[in-house]
């Protein structure tokens, strides 16, 4: 069995992602959450936003399309991708994310634990916009079933 505890404290390569209206609309439509604030720039502006805004779970788009893909990430972490489950997800909202924003993400592998029937990997990310403002923090728990 691969010892991955050495990964704790290491970082994934940093990346940037430009938030776009079309991708927000596509994501909102996939969930079936068609709020005006995600679709209509005029209505979003009237509500005081710079542009259409990202739904609360939009960071998943940023990480998958901006960062490593799932296969690449599993290879990087030497995980058996067939046995990976998403165990938990946490977001802390610190500011708006709107179309036009360029979000830079830093990800730390913050924990690794051996459980009876799984390995648990914890990843913490911070999301900064083009003005250097921290707009989001996330924590992901990835489970690799034995």
């Amino acid at each position, binding site marked *: 069995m691969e010892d991955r505890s050495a990964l704790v404290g290491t970082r994934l390569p940093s990346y940037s992602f430009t938030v776009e209206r079309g991708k927000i609309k596509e994501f909102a439509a*996939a969930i079936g959450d068609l*709020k005006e604030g995600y679709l209509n720039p005029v209505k979003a502006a009237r509500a005081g936003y710079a542009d259409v805004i990202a*739904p609360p779970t939009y960071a998943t788009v940023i990480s998958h399309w901006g960062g490593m893909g799932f*296969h690449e990430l599993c290879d990087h972490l030497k995980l058996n991708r*067939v046995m*990976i489950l998403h165990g938990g*997800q*946490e977001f*802390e*909202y610190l500011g708006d994310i709107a179309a036009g924003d360029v979000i830079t993400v830093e990800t730390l592998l913050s924990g690794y634990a051996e459980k009876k029937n799984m390995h648990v990997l914890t990843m913490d990310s911070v999301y900064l916009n083009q003005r250097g403002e921290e707009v989001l923090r996330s924590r992901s728990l990835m489970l690799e079933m034995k």
Partner: protein
Amino acid sequence: MIDFASVQVGDRMPALTKPPVDQIQLVKYAGASGDFNPLHYMDEVGKAAGQGGVIAHGMLIMGFIGQAVTDWVPNRSLKSLKVRFARPTMLGDIITVTGRVTDKKSQGGREYICVEVAAADQRCEVKVTGSFEAWLP
């Protein structure tokens, strides 16, 4: 719009029931989110993983929770949203999101509510549990 004074501990968030999760939704969500884990679109991978077939992206169900939450409180008021994925959601499952206010707090002169949330299917099997916090005026 709801305000801090009008919300009491024990209050229920309005429930949201989604249409049955189908294959088209999982394909759309895979493309939109960029999560192309084959577990979510290849039956044989789901079976190999011991799930009995394709399962929905956990983040899709968290997306349903995000929808229910922001149907109730404005997006900008959201302070945090945290979930644990308890059981897989299968094709055909009808997910209902519910929530209950557990606490009212203040921080730095601003007030916020704490709400526990859950997503369960048509058999009341809980798929996702979690909580959110929201600043309220």
